[in-house]
């Protein structure tokens, strides 16, 4: 990752900047919405437990310490995924988010909530994303 950032540094004009977007290390939450009620069901896990994102943070810290980039601004935003059913969510994970999985406890809780007689219901995955702008030095 550090090598990639060093290469990017060489590709940017002297007054240029780097924008990085990557998920935070906290796992995405899974909620069930029943009409206007939002009920926590558990967490979505990734096979590496978010280590990849921790390494990304470390790589950015390394290139800042090396004086290649300086942090200008940073923040977070919520990135939400809505699925009509748990089957829809699991199909999406299988096809598009292959290293993600739902643990058994969360799955049972979500299934129980989704079996409610309330017809206005959906599954929500809430992921916190970090975004930052770095000036090239």
């Amino acid at each position, binding site marked *: 990752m550090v090598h990639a950032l060093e290469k990017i540094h060489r590709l940017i004009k002297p007054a240029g900047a780097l924008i990085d977007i990557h998920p935070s290390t906290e796992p995405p939450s899974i909620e069930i919405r029943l009409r206007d009620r939002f009920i926590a069901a558990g967490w979505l896990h990734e096979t590496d437990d978010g280590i990849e994102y921790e390494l990304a943070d470390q790589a950015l810290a390394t290139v800042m310490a090396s004086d290649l980039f300086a942090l200008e601004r940073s923040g977070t935003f919520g990135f939400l*995924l809505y699925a009509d059913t748990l089957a*829809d969510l699991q199909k*999406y994970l299988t096809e598009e988010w292959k290293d993600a999985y739902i643990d058994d406890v969360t799955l049972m809780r979500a299934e129980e909530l989704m079996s409610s007689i309330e017809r206005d219901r959906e599954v929500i995955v809430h992921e916190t994303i970090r975004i930052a702008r770095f000036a090239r030095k």
Partner: protein
Amino acid sequence: MAVRIDPEDSETKALHELADFSGRRMLEIGCGDGRLTWRYADRAAQIVAIDPDADDITTAIEDCPAHLRDRIEFRVSRIEDFEPPEELFDLALLSWSL
């Protein structure tokens, strides 16, 4: 499949709060199928968007709106193997790829 991703457009809002893409020469690393590229491409002057996944790049090229085709170049490449053009970039964007 009834899945909706970021219908609030939070990612686009956060991106545009952080940078002005107007007239910029952009390098996007890890562009995938262009999902994020389309969110700023209208403003940028030129974009080189790279991703190691050839299938995703094919999708991005197929989905690229006609009015953006002369401004965006999609390439199958990892950043480590990327052959740099003569002109450097104003902004680089790591889109969920570090």
